[in-house]
């Protein structure tokens, strides 16, 4: 039931719109679309000596996608760039219903109710996938 899906913490997260905007000259950027629904996430990030110093997101998507983007933008600055891949893997595991998968990234567990709704997994993953794409672009430089 979507009673569980749209809980207060998820709605508040989406409404915070953390990190919304663009960086003026980011280390790397990535834009990803969900072809199925038309959602689009653009992530800019600055990386210095392997650490994310800034991350912004522009998200055109559903409440779940915006909440995930806000969580990403809130938690990423100060972390190692490699943590993005860890978070993405943990989120994928969480959505598959694997216990303990959320431990590596704060508040990932907010998305646990999305797990039974397979058609919505892509909404939550899109911001993290865009961030990972940006990290890979930075690594390729």
């Amino acid at each position, binding site marked *: *039931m*979507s*009673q569980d*899906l*749209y809980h207060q913490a998820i*709605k508040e997260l989406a409404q915070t719109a953390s990190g919304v905007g663009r960086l003026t000259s980011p280390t790397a950027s990535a834009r990803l679309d969900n072809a*199925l*629904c*038309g959602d689009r996430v653009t992530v800019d990030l600055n990386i210095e000596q392997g650490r994310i110093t800034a991350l912004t997101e522009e998200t*055109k*998507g*559903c*409440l*779940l996608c915006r909440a995930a983007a806000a969580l990403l933008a809130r938690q990423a600055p100060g972390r190692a760039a490699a943590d993005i891949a860890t978070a993405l893997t943990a989120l994928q595991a969480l959505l598959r219903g694997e216990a303990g998968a959320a431990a590596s990234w704060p508040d990932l567990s907010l998305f646990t109710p999305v797990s039974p*709704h397979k058609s*919505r997994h892509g*909404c939550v993953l899109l911001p993290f996938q865009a961030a990972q794409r940006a990290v890979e672009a930075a690594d390729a430089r």
Partner: protein
Amino acid sequence: MSFDPLALRREFPFFAAADKPPRHYLDNAATSQIHGSALASMIDHETRRANVMRGNHALAARATEAYATARQQSARFLHAASADEIIFTAGATTALNLVAAAFGATLSAGDEVVVSLAEHHSNLVPWQQLRQRRGIVLKFLPLTGDGRIDTNALTDVVTPRCRLIALTHCSNVTGAQTDVTAVTAAARAVGARVLLDGAQRAPHGPVDVAALGVDFYVFSGHKCYGPGGIGVLWGRAEALQGLPPFLTGGGMVGEVFPEHSAFAPPPRRFEAGTPPIAAAIGLGVALTALMDWPWPAIHDHQQALLNRLLHGLADIPGLCLLGPRDTAARCPVVSFAIADLHPHDICQVLDDHGVALRGGHLCAQPLMRHFGIDGANRASLAPYNTNDDIDALLTGLDDAIRRLR
């Protein structure tokens, strides 16, 4: 004649399914439910099946006859002059691609094809690809403020270089029906052909291609209470006659030599390989059932549902209705956007209410941009829908707005 939607439901296995389907199915524009007789005819064919137009044993003859009957039933549905004008395809999209490839092969650089900004991607992307291949000019009819194709612009857009006007018969987003009379008049004035994408119109009753005066008409089976994987291209005989094949291989040839081949006349020329036999049979049976329904009474029933829905939507703050307000000019397809709420989130909550609703860009992104939105929700009705379905949708929307904000 009166019409009872609950009695009609008895013809659809969906409503008797043991695993409790959504109680309120309002996604008919994406796929309608299959008619029981269509399903039964497909099971009958697949249980004792053979290929068509190849063998002369009894089973092959039976399959060939059933396939030919499906072609006749489809011709009758469209009021086509001959069953030979019916080409079975994998769906409406394939049918549109067939015309873009076959008719497109007769076009030269600079020839013009006119579409509109209200088209489903299936009646846009094939023409974009043709532009790349042949150097044609793709022109667009603009839209009115409420999303209808602005046929007043035909005089400006349609020039003597126009070879084809390809338009939706009924928008999959707004339900708006195209003023075909104006289109055919403009096309005739310059000797152009007219194609109608009938995917959203065909489910709402038999079509008269002769009266419409068009040259090509396409629709899909799964929106017309038939099976998936089947569609129809109707082409006026003389419009099909000179066209080259789309796909090639067995079944579409007259005679084959090592270095060249002669092709069969239509419709076989355009049906390479083993066709979707069971699906064609199922479609023919579904269309036969559809032709037997009391359409004037169904039209009244659907207009009442449409009015009930539009009236209810008008009371929702922040809701933007897409399309004309004139219910007589639209099929029972209603799309809307609600400020600050994403269509998929709305669909998710509606699902809790047993309402199957569509949300997203609806394969019509240029039209969405026209309305200044990324996506919308769409409720699309079929004759088996009832007041309860509409009320459940409106109740669910109230709940969605409350829960998502």
